[in-house]
């Protein structure tokens, strides 16, 4: 009989994972049969793998969530699905507006004042204006000085426009919006891939106190929002949290009074 190659830890994993050829498998099994403790250890690995499949395979059978489907299907802007989404948002906004007092941050305890409304308002404004091809903004980035002066006057305090060129987003311009505590503004940015990001700015209101970062996800639109000494801000985009967080951090640091 030829001398058997030593059995090592890697062989045991390959046995448990069914990755050995027949000859080697037989050698490993002969070795395992010599000691019940060895056999028990690798048998448990196999049982754990079966348990993982039993636990998580059902996830793969679930229907694909709409927000994930939308990421793939909305890659070209201006298609019908996107337009439908905007109308959906308008309807939702009207509904929630009539019900009143709705807390946008899912499952969060009641948030006072301007913060309660902020992510919904910002996401709604993002959904309405960001698909616009011809009129995404009222005043273009070519008139940035005018834009700053105009919106500062309307919002009653100096407004600053963060620059996101380093992250690949160029300013398209801005517009005036109605907000819960008076006038608000929206600045829109776009990257080379046509993906848009909006920064919503509104007066913080009398009951608004400076707050830390918060995050909400509104029908596929991610929103980071916070309040500082002057304004309430919300950065929105059809991005996941990991993409949006560094952008929000950048904006936040540029706006620190």
């Amino acid at each position, binding site marked *: 009989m030829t001398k058997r190659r*030593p*059995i*090592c*830890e*890697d062989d*045991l*994993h*390959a046995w448990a*994972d069914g*990755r050995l050829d027949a000859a080697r498998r037989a050698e490993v099994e002969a070795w395992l049969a010599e000691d019940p403790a060895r056999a028990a*250890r690798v048998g*448990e*690995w196999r049982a*754990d*793998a079966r*348990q*993982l*499949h*039993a*636990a*998580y*395979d*059902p*996830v*793969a*059978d*679930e229907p*694909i*969530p709409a*927000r*994930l*489907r939308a*990421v*793939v*299907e909305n*890659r070209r802007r201006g298609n019908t699905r996107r337009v439908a989404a905007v109308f959906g948002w308008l309807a939702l906004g009207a509904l929630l507006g009539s019900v009143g007092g709705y807390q946008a941050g899912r*499952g*969060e305890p009641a948030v006072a004042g301007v913060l309660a409304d902020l992510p919904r308002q910002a996401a709604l404004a993002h959904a309405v204006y960001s698909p616009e091809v011809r009129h995404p903004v009222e005043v273009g980035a070519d008139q940035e000085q005018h834009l700053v002066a105009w919106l500062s006057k309307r919002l009653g305090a100096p407004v600053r426009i963060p620059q996101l060129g380093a992250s690949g987003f160029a300013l398209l311009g801005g517009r005036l919006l109605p907000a819960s505590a008076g006038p608000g503004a929206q600045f829109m940015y776009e990257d080379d*891939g046509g*993906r848009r990001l909006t920064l919503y700015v509104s007066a913080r209101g009398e009951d608004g106190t400076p707050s*830390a*970062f*918060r*995050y909400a*996800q509104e029908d596929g639109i991610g929103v980071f929002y916070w309040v500082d000494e002057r304004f309430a801000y919300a950065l929105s985009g059809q*991005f*996941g*949290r*990991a*993409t949006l*967080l560094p952008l929000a*951090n950048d904006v936040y640091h540029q706006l620190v009074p």
Partner: protein
Amino acid sequence: MLSNDALLAEIPRLRRYARALAGDAVRADDLVQDTLERALAKGRLWRPGNLRAWLLTLMHNLFVNQIRAQRLVDYRSPDELPDPPVRAQQLDGLELRDLDQALQALPGEQREALLLVALEDLSYEEAARVLGIPVGTVMSRLSRGRDRLRQLLAGQPASVAHLKVVK
């Protein structure tokens, strides 16, 4: 060209892996969404080949960044985290919760290696490419991860003596 249909077809398995990796449904789908966005943004770099392995590689990079970021910014308090979803099929709820918790108690790198091999059925070489590490490192993470998971599920905190090479 990266087609929509090919990407959509990968979503169910990406979600399965992300759920086991991230531990809760919302974080898992955030991870999948970020992965899809990254894939679309980098679509021009994509050359026909193993789409799933490429997506898993993107997800791995995001996961590693998230682990780093979580140390700096914790933007959701534990009270706000949703309860683990109930999906009792072959396993009852208690067993699933135990498994979820045991997985989350593993270091991220061991969890990734274990799930890629035992749940996603990747070969050791494929797992090494996805994780950007040598095959030998995959094997040692797999080994530590398997023994640790076993201890956690058996309710023993202590470490077990390691079997390395035996004659």
